[in-house]
C-alpha cells in the first residue's frame, strides 16, 4: 500500500495533483529577529519517506520546521504541503502532526493524558483513520457518532508508545520522557500524511526510541506516512532514515544517509572543529 | 418560577404592624424623618452612616424592609440614584416615595472650584457670580424635569413659586439675575446642558446643609408622612413644627453670627456647601467637585491665591477623613485646618443635626475672623 490516493479523491482540493511531493520547500529564507536563521533552502519530501534534518546547535533546524508549518513568517520562498500553499491548506491541516522542541505549558493545566491524546483527533468527515474501518462517506458525522472510534484510537495510540498506564494522570505530573511519549501518542491518534518531529525523541529512553522507529517504519510502509524529523543522534538517523538534510543556515547537503553523513559533509555542516568528534568515534 | 405579587401582598400585611414603616435613605434624611415621626412611626436608615455610599451592597433584610415599608424618604437630586434599581427590585407598588428636595431649586453649576484669576477682583461682587449660578441651575433643572417626568410631576412654575414664598427677597434677586445673564451666558449654557444630558448627580445634592432648605425638606417630608398616614397627622405637625422652629433658630444664629464678618470666603475640600454659602452670602471655594477627584496644579495654585487674597484663616476638611492635601496646604500657608461636617455620617439622633451645624458655625467663624 502506498500514499492513500482515496483521501485526495474525497477531498477534491484544488491544489492536490495526483503525484505531488508531500512537502515542497523552495528557496525558503526565514528571519529570527534580524538574523537570517535559514537562507534559501529548497527540498522536497516524497510520500512515504523518513527524512532527518541534522546540523549543529543554532543551525536553524527548528526555525526551518516552524516556518514550514506556518508558525513563523518567512521572508522569501514558498512552502507547499500536499501540493497546497500553506495558507490554502484549510481542512487538510489536521493531516499534519507536529511535536515542538520545547513543549511549554502550564504545569497546573487540568488535563489528563488521555484527554491530551484525544485532542489530536479531529472529528472530520474526511478523516480516514487507517487503523479503523472507514465509515460511509456520504453521512454527516456528529461528535457522538465517532466517540467509540475516538476512544479506541486514543487507547491504541497510547499503547503504541507505552503510556496507556498513565492515561488518567495529569499531564503536569509526567516525567520528561513520559511527556514526549504522550505527545507522540497525540500525533499517532489519527492518520497523518506528514509528521514533523523536532527532537521528539530527545529524552525518550532507548526502548521507547527503538519502538518508535519501528512504528514509524511500519506507518511509513503500510500507510504512506511521511516523516520530517530533527535529530542530533546521527547513529539513529543513519540507521532509520531514508534521507538526510544537513543544515547550517544553508542546506549544506542532502541525500541518502551514507553519503550525506560522510565525514566531508559533516565537516561542512558542523564546521572545521568537527574533526574532534570524528576522532573519538 | 413565576413572579409572585400574591406572595408579596400576603407578606406585607402580615409583617407590617399598625404603625407606619418608614425608611430613610441616609443620615440627614433619617434625622429629619425621625424628628417628625417621633414615636408615631418606625423609622429605619438604609445606609448606615459611615458606609461609603458606593461600597453599599444591600442585604436581603434591607430590600425586604423596602418591600414592606409604607414610605421611603430620599433626598433626591440623584443622591440615591444607585438605589433606584434596588428599590425597583423590591417591587413595592404601594411604597410612597418622598423626595425631600422636590420643592427645591438645585444648584447645577459648580461652585467656583477653579477660581479664575482675572475675575478674582470681581469676585467680591457675589451678586454676579450668584446670578450665574442660578441661571445654570435653572437650565439644568428644567432639563432634569423633562426626563424625570414620572415621579415628581410638579410644574416648574409652582416650584419657583414655592421657593419665592418662603424667601421672597432672595427669590426676586434670583429671577432678576437669571434674566439678566441668560443672554450673556448663552454659550456657557450649552455646556451646562451637555452636563445635564448626563443624569448622574448633575445637580449638587447637598441641600440639607442649608437650614432654610432643611426647613423645606422637613415640610416636604411632613406632608408626605401625613398623606401616607393621616391618623397621626397631628403628631407629625407638632413634631415638625418644633423641629422647624429649631431650624429657624439655627438659621437666625447663622445669619446673626456670620453677618458680623466682611470677608466671607472659605475653602472646603469638595463642593458640599454651595447651598449654605448661598444662603449666608458666603463664598465657598471648593478645591475639587467630589472627593475622588484628582487635582491639577492650577487648582491648588488658585486655592493658594484665594487664601492670600482673602486672608482666609482656615481650610475645611471633613471629620474623620485624613485629608493630606489640606494638611500640607495648611502647613504651607500657615492656616488652620478645621472640619466642616457635611452630615453624611454621624450619630442617629435628630439633635445631631444641630450639634453638627453649630460646630460648623463655630468653625466658619474662626475662618472669617
Amino acid at each position, binding site marked *: 500500500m502506498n500514499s492513500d490516493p482515496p483521501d485526495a479523491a474525497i477531498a477534491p482540493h484544488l491544489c492536490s495533483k495526483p503525484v505531488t511531493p508531500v512537502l515542497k520547500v523552495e528557496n525558503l529564507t526565514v528571519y529570527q529577529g534580524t538574523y537570517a536563521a535559514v537562507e534559501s533552502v529548497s527540498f522536497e519530501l516524497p510520500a512515504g519517506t523518513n527524512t532527518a534534518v541534522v546540523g549543529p546547535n543554532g543551525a536553524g533546524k527548528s526555525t526551518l520546521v516552524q516556518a514550514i508549518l506556518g508558525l513563523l513568517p518567512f521572508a522569501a520562498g514558498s512552502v507547499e504541503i500536499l501540493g497546497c500553499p500553506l495558507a490554502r491548506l484549510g481542512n487538510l491541516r489536521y493531516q499534519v502532526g507536529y511535536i515542538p522542541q520545547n513543549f511549554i505549558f502550564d504545569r497546573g493545566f487540568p488535563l489528563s493524558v488521555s484527554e491530551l491524546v484525544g485532542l489530536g483527533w479531529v472529528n472530520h468527515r474526511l478523516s480516514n483513520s487507517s487503523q479503523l474501518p472507514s465509515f460511509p462517506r456520504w453521512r454527516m458525522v456528529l461528535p457522538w457518532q465517532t466517540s467509540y472510534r475516538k476512544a479506541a484510537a486514543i487507547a491504541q495510540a497510547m499503547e503504541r508508545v507505552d503510556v496507556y498506564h498513565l492515561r488518567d494522570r495529569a499531564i503536569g505530573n509526567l516525567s520528561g520522557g513520559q511527556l514526549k511519549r504522550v505527545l507522540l501518542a497525540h500525533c499517532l491518534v489519527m492518520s497523518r500524511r506528514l509528521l514533523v518531529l523536532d527532537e521528539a525523541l530527545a529524552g525518550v529512553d532507548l526502548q521507547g526510541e527503538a519502538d518508535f522507529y519501528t512504528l514509524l517504519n511500519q506507518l511509513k510502509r503500510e500507510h504512506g506516512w511521511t516523516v520530517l524529523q530533527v535529530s542530533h543522534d546521527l547513529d539513529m538517523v543513519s540507521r532509520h532514515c531514508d534521507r538526510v538534510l544537513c543544515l547550517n543556515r544553508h542546506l549544506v547537503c542532502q541525500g541518502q544517509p551514507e553519503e550525506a553523513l560522510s565525514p566531508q559533509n559533516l565537516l561542512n555542516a558542523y564546521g572545521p572543529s568537527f574533526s574532534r568528534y570524528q576522532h573519538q568515534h | 418560577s413565576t413572579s409572585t405579587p400574591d406572595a408579596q401582598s400576603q407578606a406585607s400585611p402580615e409583617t407590617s404592624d399598625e404603625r407606619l414603616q418608614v425608611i430613610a435613605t441616609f443620615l440627614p434624611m433619617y434625622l429629619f424623618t425621625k424628628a417628625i415621626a417621633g414615636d408615631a412611626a418606625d423609622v429605619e436608615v438604609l445606609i448606615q452612616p459611615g458606609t461609603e455610599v458606593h461600597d453599599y*451592597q444591600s442585604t*436581603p433584610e434591607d430590600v425586604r424592609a423596602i418591600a414592606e415599608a409604607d414610605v421611603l424618604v430620599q433626598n433626591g437630586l440623584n443622591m440615591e440614584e444607585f438605589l433606584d434599581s434596588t428599590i425597583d427590585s423590591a417591587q413595592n407598588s404601594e411604597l410612597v416615595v418622598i423626595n425631600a428636595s422636590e420643592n427645591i431649586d438645585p444648584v447645577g453649576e459648580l461652585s467656583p472650584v477653579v477660581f479664575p484669576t482675572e475675575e478674582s477682583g470681581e469676585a467680591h461682587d457675589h451678586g454676579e457670580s450668584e446670578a450665574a449660578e442660578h441661571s445654570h441651575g435653572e437650565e439644568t433643572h428644567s432639563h432634569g424635569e423633562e426626563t424625570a417626568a414620572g415621579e415628581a410631576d410638579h410644574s416648574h412654575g409652582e416650584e419657583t413659586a414655592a421657593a419665592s414664598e418662603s424667601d421672597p427677597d432672595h427669590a426676586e434677586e434670583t429671577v432678576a439675575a437669571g434674566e439678566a445673564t441668560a443672554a450673556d451666558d448663552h454659550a456657557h449654557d450649552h455646556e451646562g446642558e451637555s452636563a445635564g444630558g*448626563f443624569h448622574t448627580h448633575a445637580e449638587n445634592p447637598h441641600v440639607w446643609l442649608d437650614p432654610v432648605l432643611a426647613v423645606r425638606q422637613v415640610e416636604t417630608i411632613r406632608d408626605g408622612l401625613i398623606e401616607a398616614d393621616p391618623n397621626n397627622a397631628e403628631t407629625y405637625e407638632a413634631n415638625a413644627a418644633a423641629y422647624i422652629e429649631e431650624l429657624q433658630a439655627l438659621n437666625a444664629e447663622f445669619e446673626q453670627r456670620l453677618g458680623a464678618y466682611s470677608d466671607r470666603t472659605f475653602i472646603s475640600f469638595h463642593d458640599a456647601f454651595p447651598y449654605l454659602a448661598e444662603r449666608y452670602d458666603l463664598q465657598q471655594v471648593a478645591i475639587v467637585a467630589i472627593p475622588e477627584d484628582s487635582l491639577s496644579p492650577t487648582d491648588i495654585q488658585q486655592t493658594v491665591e484665594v487664601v492670600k487674597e482673602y486672608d482666609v484663616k482656615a481650610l475645611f476638611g471633613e471629620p474623620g477623613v485624613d485629608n493630606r492635601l489640606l494638611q500640607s496646604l495648611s502647613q504651607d500657608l500657615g492656616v488652620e485646618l478645621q472640619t466642616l461636617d457635611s452630615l453624611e455620617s454621624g450619630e442617629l439622633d435628630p439633635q445631631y443635626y444641630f450639634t453638627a451645624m453649630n460646630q460648623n458655625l463655630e468653625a466658619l467663624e474662626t475662618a472669617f475672623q
Partner: protein
Amino acid sequence: MQNLIELLQFPFMQRAIAGGILLGLLGGLLGCFVTLRQLSFFSHAVGHAALVGIALGVLLQLPLNSMLLPFTLVFGLVVLYLIDQTDLWSDNVLSIVLSGALATGVILTSFIQGYRGNLMGILFGDILAINYADLILTGLLFLGSSIFLLLTLDQQILLTLNQAIAKVQGISVQLHRYLFVILLSLSVAVSIKAVGILLVNAFLVIPASTAKLVSHQFTKFLWLSLILGVLSSIAGMLASGVFDFASGPSIVLVQFIFFLAFLGFSKLNRKNSETLKKR
C-alpha cells in the same frame, strides 16, 4: 430559619437566587478559560477602565448605558492585541492598559461641566437589584457561550495549552482568542451592570480556580467549576438571608471559603497519604 423561608417568598430574593445561579454557570464556564489564559483581572480592569468610556459618553452626550458594552469590547481587543505584540505577561498588559485608561478617564472627566457626582455609579450593581431583563440576558449569554465553547471545546483546550500545536492542527487560534475575548467582554458588560464589579470578578475567578486545585481532567474541571459556581451562589444567598449580610459579598465569601476548604483538603490528602506510605 423562619425568616429565611419568608424571605424566599419575595420575588427579589427569587430573582437574586436565579441570577446567582445563572452567573454561577456563566462565570464557571468562562472562568475555566479565564484562569488558564491568565485573564483573572480582566473583569476588574475593565470595570475600572470603564471610566474613560463613561466620561466619553458624557462628553459626547451619548446615553451612558450604551457606552459600557462598546468600551468593554474595545478594551478587550486592545489588551489582546498588546499581549500578541509583546513578550509581556497578560496581567502586566492588563495592568498597563487599566492604568492608561483610568488616567485618561480621570482627565476626561475634568472636561465635564457642572457637578458630576461619582461617574462610576454604573458599575456598582447589586445582586438584589437584578431584574428580569438582566436574568434573560444572562441566560441567553450562558446559552450562547456554552454552545460556542462546548462545540469548540477541543480547539479551546488545545489553543490554551499550546498555541503552536493548535495552529498546526488547523485551529484558527487568533479567531478563537478574539471570539473568546468578545464573549468575555459581553458577559462582563452585562453582568457588571447587574451585580457589580466585585461579584463579576469573583464569579469568573474563584470557582474555576477552586476546581483547578483538585482536577486532573478537563471535563471534571469544567463540571466542578460550574457546580461550585452554582452552589456558592445558592449557599451565599441563603447565608446572607440567615445572617443578614449583604448578599453579593456573602456569595463571594462562600466562594472564598470553598477555595480554602478545597485547598486544605488537597493538602491534607497529600499529607495523609505520605505519612501512610512512610510507615
